[in-house]
């Protein structure tokens, strides 16, 4: 259950965003400049809305009126960025192990399972600069999952890839969707991609 009702402002840019979704996998679509990434950043705690409320599964992450603003590192929101953002000074295994939301005791996703799910077992000793775009994005998804998030945000994870690589990655995203009971919010501007991954669509205009 995702409930977002926020006011975003940056300079002259002003936008009111309202999302109420009960579906587990939601696509957020809309033209570029509609503020899709800003909404994800606000949910992740990387961007502070001017006003409003963000609630994920009954956890209030942000509430301007009640002066609640949970810092990003305590929100348990996994974030797969458009540009992977792997740590260049760490190898793949260390990147995957970087996250530690919730501690190991209540770990929902196990290291070996996620590595197998995403097919990245052969990459563990490599540095990010020796990965292809698709490999890097799979590692980024694995890293986000292994931080044991309560919600996974994906910001156009396929947009930096060519058509063939996109085709390669979509089945992995579908496996993540089907095999892990994890709420996901997926930003994209490709209709076809959205149809193949999301259960519900929220249009931002």
């Amino acid at each position, binding site marked *: 259950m995702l409930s977002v009702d926020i006011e975003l402002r940056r300079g002259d840019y002003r936008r009111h965003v309202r999302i109420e979704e009960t579906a587990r996998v939601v696509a957020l679509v809309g033209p570029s400049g509609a503020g899709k990434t800003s909404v994800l950043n606000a949910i*992740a*705690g*990387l961007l502070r809305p001017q006003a409003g409320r963000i609630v994920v599964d009954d956890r209030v992450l942000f509430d301007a009126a009640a002066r609640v603003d949970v*810092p*990003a*590192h*305590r*929100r*348990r*929101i*996994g*974030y797969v*960025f458009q*540009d992977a*953002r*792997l*740590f*260049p*000074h760490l190898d793949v295994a260390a990147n995957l192990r*970087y*996250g*530690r*939301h*919730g501690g190991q005791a209540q770990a929902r996703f196990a290291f070996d399972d996620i590595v197998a799910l995403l097919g990245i077992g052969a990459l563990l000793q490599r540095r*990010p*600069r020796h990965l292809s775009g698709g490999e890097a994005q799979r590692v980024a998804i694995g*890293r*986000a999952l292994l*931080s044991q998030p309560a919600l996974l945000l994906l910001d156009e994870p396929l947009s930096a890839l060519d058509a063939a690589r996109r085709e390669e990655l979509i089945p992995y995203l579908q496996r993540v969707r089907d095999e892990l009971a994890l709420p996901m919010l997926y930003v994209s501007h490709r209709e076809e991609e959205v149809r193949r991954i999301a259960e519900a669509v929220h249009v931002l205009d």
Partner: protein
Amino acid sequence: MVPAFSPEEITAIVLSVKVALVAAVASLPLGVACGWLLARREFPGKALFDALLLLPLVMPPVVTGYVLLIAFGNQGVLGQWLRETLGIQLAFRWTGAALACAVMGFPLMVRAIRLSIEATDRRLEAAAATLGAAPWRVFFTVTLPLAWPGLVAGAVLAFAKALGEFGATITFVSNIPGQTQTLSAAIYGLLQVPGGEAGIWRLTAVAFVISLLALLLSEWLVRRQRVLQER
């Protein structure tokens, strides 16, 4: 052919390196803190803070030395406190020379550190935060490992600057052979006596070589940071 250094010259060289090394290493943590503040935080009075840090770079070194003498001299408030509580005397000691060098080198150090922290990708820090890393962990596991060559480059610059420091040092701790007579002070001393030319040349060559090596090292470190950040 190795030039024959006199014992006094060797003493001055060793003392200079010791003073410069201590100055650079001891001021590094504070330099990192200030560089990070300037690179990553907005706060009221930031412009003034930045200007105050830069002040030793543009103020006459004699003035900086005099201010140190007033504050840390045996009659100074801080100097008395340090001597009575910690037993540290700075005035007319090599430790005082190290303090003067640290102050003079600090603007260069902070500038280099600030640039290297500014050059590290904030988006990686944001990614670390979404993975559950508290700000201190982000700093030690992402910012610092990516910026370290720049930090060391800052320390090397401060070391090179400290090696050549003269005005503030001689004002604060005077020119005592074996205690506060650094390379620059020794050269200056030799200029005052007839027949000192050979010694001046030897010490000048040493200063030239050490400074050049330090600059080359700092440039190499900055390039190393760029390689490290490549993705």
